[in-house]
């Protein structure tokens, strides 16, 4: 996973890509663990399945404002978000939900 404003880890040419947006800040003590959980959860899938964008709101507060993100860490997958260090099961549900939504 890259760690820059609007950094994209994979090409987004395929519409099947699961789009994940991860919000963190430099003062957020929970963010490193949340990032680890996210990375470990998607490890079992092929990396080509995801388009991950990480926003550090300390450097890029406009993105927090654009997405209305007050609390960190926040992970957005397909219009749904979780706040705090997520359980892997919840992330899996969100990923599957996104895939189902794309198919239907």
């Amino acid at each position: 996973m890259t760690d820059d404003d609007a950094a994209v880890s994979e090409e987004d040419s395929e519409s099947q890509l699961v789009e994940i947006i991860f919000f963190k800040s430099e003062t957020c003590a929970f963010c490193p663990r949340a990032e680890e959980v996210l990375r470990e959860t998607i490890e079992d899938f092929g990396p080509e399945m995801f388009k991950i964008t990480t926003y550090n709101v300390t450097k890029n507060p406009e993105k927090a404002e654009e997405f209305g993100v007050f609390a960190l860490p926040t992970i957005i997958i397909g219009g749904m978000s979780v706040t705090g260090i997520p359980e892997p099961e919840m992330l899996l549900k969100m990923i599957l939900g996104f895939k189902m939504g794309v198919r239907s």
Partner: protein
Amino acid sequence: MSQYKIERVKTGIPGLDELIEGGFPRGDTILVAGKAGTGKSILATQFLYRGIVDYGEPGVLITLEEPPRLIKRNMMRFGMDLEKLEKEGKLAIVDLSPARTTSVNIEEYPSFDLSGLEAIIMHHMKKINAQRVVIDTLSILAYKFKSRDILREEIFKMCANITSTGCTLLLTSEIPAQDTGLGVFDIEAFLASGVIVLYNEKISDTSRSRSIEVLKLRGSKHSSRIHSMRITDEGIRVWPGEISPGT
């Protein structure tokens, strides 16, 4: 008693400064609490508007509830042209109202902070060199997040960081209809060094009376009475010599 004088920020509400030794202590957090329709948002926005127009202090309005276009429209009724101040770079209205939400939060784990909100506020403060900040209304956060203990601590931290820059911060808090406290957190008063309560009490079958009370203001001698207040064509006005008929 020492002759040391605390620097004051004029409130911009005619009559209010006379109740609080000339204004809010600069760099403090002030809570304006009241039930729906008591004039909290008008008072808070007037504090910013008059701060810019009369005292040359740029301000940031963080709106968590009402969209900016409605705030601007409503304040124009009092002759306060917020749009103009925005264009002049003296006022920033930050729209964080629910209408702006781009995602649906499906789960909240008790391991978060409010550094996102703080980064947004600090960014706008820095851009216009703000000396006054309003968050209207804090109560929305209580509906947005369920982990109240974390939220309280985080709001406290955020307020401390905002005021550490020298900015005077005014928060509004809505008191639920049947409630006797100062807002949905029950601890709003602890967050702030000053608490102003607005009332709009029914005094007869056909009329209501608006009033204002300075419940606390650290470092200040303030009136302990409940004073008459009216919403006039120029905004809120307090009558320091007039005790509310509803009390």
